């Protein structure tokens, strides 16, 4: 097990109202640690020195809850493709490296503290229409709605979005098009969700704009940085649906 001596530059910010700045720390790590375990070591050190540890969000540490959210050396979730911060391991860094850690930065994601940001705008986008309107107990037998396997796979791929917000942090415009389009695709592709598709698209896009997310200019950084590799195809699908719905809906 080889030891690594690292210099970590971390963004420290008390709250949204106070300006933040980088602080530099030395951390001894090893290659088997995950990135968050390295941050744990740093925090343990800070607590030991009676200082406030770095606030960062994390929960499942299995790459699925979407809580972890740092920008590492300029990239949301760090340098490894299709990987959340919690699944990034130190073997992808070298002894002596200097690593910069910042919060996700976007107008619609205000900083709460240090590396923690407020992503509740995503919840409000889902609340505006990201569901199928079915009450508990109303469902017909599961197998009475056959779904073509390829369609089910596409819907599933869109549904794997973990709502982490890396797409927004990666986008120079701070756009949430990938997140919103993934939900619109997931539900709209399935026969169960197709019925409300137009209405859903219009409402979710409107909410997205209201939250202050930027526009899409086809850069593609969102998809490149997405830990679940959500495809840009979803944005194209959403744009088509939006135009179609705007022209044809009678609501």
């Amino acid at each position, binding site marked *: 097990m080889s030891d690594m001596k690292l210099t970590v530059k971390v963004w420290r910010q008390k709250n949204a109202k106070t300006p933040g700045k980088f602080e530099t720390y030395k951390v001894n790590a090893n290659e088997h640690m995950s990135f968050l375990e390295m941050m744990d070591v740093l925090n343990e050190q800070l607590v030991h020195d009676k200082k406030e540890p770095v606030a960062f969000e994390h929960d499942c540490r299995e790459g*699925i809850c979407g809580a972890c959210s740092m920008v590492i050396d300029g990239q949301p979730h760090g340098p490894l493709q299709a990987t959340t911060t919690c699944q990034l391991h130190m073997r992808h860094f070298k002894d002596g490296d200097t690593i910069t850690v910042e919060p996700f930065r976007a107008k619609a994601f205000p900083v709460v503290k240090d590396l923690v940001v407020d992503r509740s705008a995503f919840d409000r986008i889902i609340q505006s229409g990201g569901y199928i309107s079915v009450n508990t107990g109303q469902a017909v037998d599961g197998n009475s709605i056959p779904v073509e396997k390829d369609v089910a796979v596409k819907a599933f791929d869109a549904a794997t979005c973990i709502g982490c917000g890396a797409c927004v942090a990666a986008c120079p415009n701070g756009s949430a098009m990938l997140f919103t389009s993934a939900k619109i695709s997931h539900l709209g592709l399935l026969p169960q969700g197709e019925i409300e598709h137009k209405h859903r698209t219009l409402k979710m896009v409107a909410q997205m704009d209201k939250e202050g997310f930027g526009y899409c200019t086809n850069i593609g950084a969102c998809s490149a940085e997405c830990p679940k590799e959500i495809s840009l195809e979803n944005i194209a699908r959403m744009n088509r649906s939006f135009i179609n719905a705007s022209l044809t809906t009678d609501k």
Partner: protein
Amino acid sequence: MQLDSKIPEGPLSEKWKKYKSTVPLVAPNNKRRIEVIVVGTGLAGASAAATLGELGYKVKAFTFHDSPRRAHSIAAQGGINAAKNYQNDGDSVYRLFYDTIKGGDYRAREANVYRLAEVSTQIIDQCVAQGVPFAREYGGLLENMSFGGVQVSRTFYAKGQTGQQLLIGAYQALSRQISTGAVKMYNRHEMMDLVVVDGKARGIIARNLLTGELERHSAHCVLLATGGYGNVFYLSTNAMGSNVSAAWRATRRGALMANPCFTQIHPTCIPQSGDYQSKLTLMSESLRNDGRVWVPKNLEDAKAIREGKKTALDIKEEDRDYYLERRYPAFGNLVPRDVASRAAKVECDKGLGVSPTGLAVFLDFSSAIERYGKAEANTQGLTNASPEEIKAMGTKVVEDKYGNLFEMYEKIAGENPYIYPMKIYPAVHYTMGGLWVDYNLETNIPGLFALGEANFSDHGANRLGASALMQGLADGYFVAPYTIGQFLANEIRTGEINTQSAAFEEAEKQTKSRIDRLMNVKGNQSVESFHRRLGKIMWDLCGMSRNAEGLKEGRRLIRELREEFYKDVFVPGNADDFNPELEKAYRVADFLELGELMMIDAYERNESCGGHFREEYQTPEGEAQRDDENYTYVAAWKWDDNEPQLTKEPLVFENVKLIQRSYK
């Protein structure tokens, strides 16, 4: 104290049907005036809050996460069981019921488990209607697989991300109710105490985690869907935030904690790699469908592998011991979790472990890759495919089935599992114990309900794979929304609950002094270091195998640790601020009490059953030896700092005959 489980009269298969059609209802005009608090928004909480909102109740839902979508239910990989019998392989409600009772080693309530099996089919229908993208066959119908401890294929799944997809379904249903105003959502709010007014649960004290402010919230009843307490072991597959505090605060207010020592140790987790680790990662049980578990037959080979001089590939077929297939020919690699975990421990204790720490066994997919490869070659009409081609085709099939799990393994372990077999070892995963509830899912405090993993009710001493998701959603969508009617029908004249009463005042004051106490210790050791030490005591003395002496010792050690904690813990920062260290501190404080109760419960149960393996009680072959005559009961504990009191609820089996559980 007498415990009344309130199981309805009548034959097993008629109980729930009859109950549903006779339970008192609350009229729509009254529902609008009745408030319900739901704490926790995982599968059980989100589905309950959504359903209650749809029904017209005024719901307030609380989560300590920044969004309900982060709940730990999301991490469940494998699948969800339902007695649909879509595969025509002989499944039925009764068989699912029977498998669950047997899998739980006859320590669960028949009526509750039967109801669970009964509503399982509705869950699948509901989830499909919500747009949960389950795996499908080419004909467009739902696909199933088999899981540990059963001989039918009844598990529905969405790749290795079933929990995520089901939770998103429930989250979306909840979001819909939030948008209509039926549910008011409190993100980043943690329940700090339960408020009991005149003997009934009437509200909670919540802490706004961003501002540290304590808030009073009242309602006519309180539902706890706050998950399990596996993190008492520090290292577990639970998410970092998972904790016992909500349930423990209820226990401190008089709710009974049932069978706390029933812990599930999951056999297939990625082994620990170092002391800095705070979290273990599960590899889904579904992998045991295709993976074969083995260790080398010879100690020398195992040693060479540990030292890195040999790899699994160097060990010849005849020098491998597929010990599960050898010991349990009927179920092979698909024995239940408790059995598989203990068997791995037995091999590693013999010195046959294969990781540097000696605590790992192999999970090998090479047979499956070859089998699938040959089948694929057949389908494509390739009669003389080379072994390499067959391997490539087989690898592709395995990748389609388990791709994301293999990827995750490679990221963590740094080794390619398509070539080298995975290394796995058991880890704490789930807690069958929890708040005692009756058939209505109501605790012994009127108006306090517990759903999902937070209650003890359905899994006995061992939970079968793919039934946690089933239970969470059953409780939330289909059980609690009916059963709370029993309580709320008497509350229509109560009117709004006042938060200025003495009970609220007192609870808030106590919460504040608890926080102040922790902030004011100003000692020298981190919360994390105490948690780690607690976890080690729990794992060593109350883990995969236990004995009377160790449990007594464990209790003493925990009491000492608790004392030290309040003398020397250091919590940085302020209480009136966003302070994750403080959150950890009050959660660990509760674990330090729960841990003691687990030791006591395990000590008191002089038998081995399911996940509770007492070394003194085993068959000559080393299997768990139950004592049905003396221990066929639920152990429900009332907490007391000095001597917790035990109340027994006898378990009555009218439909199932108790036999020695055998998977041979």
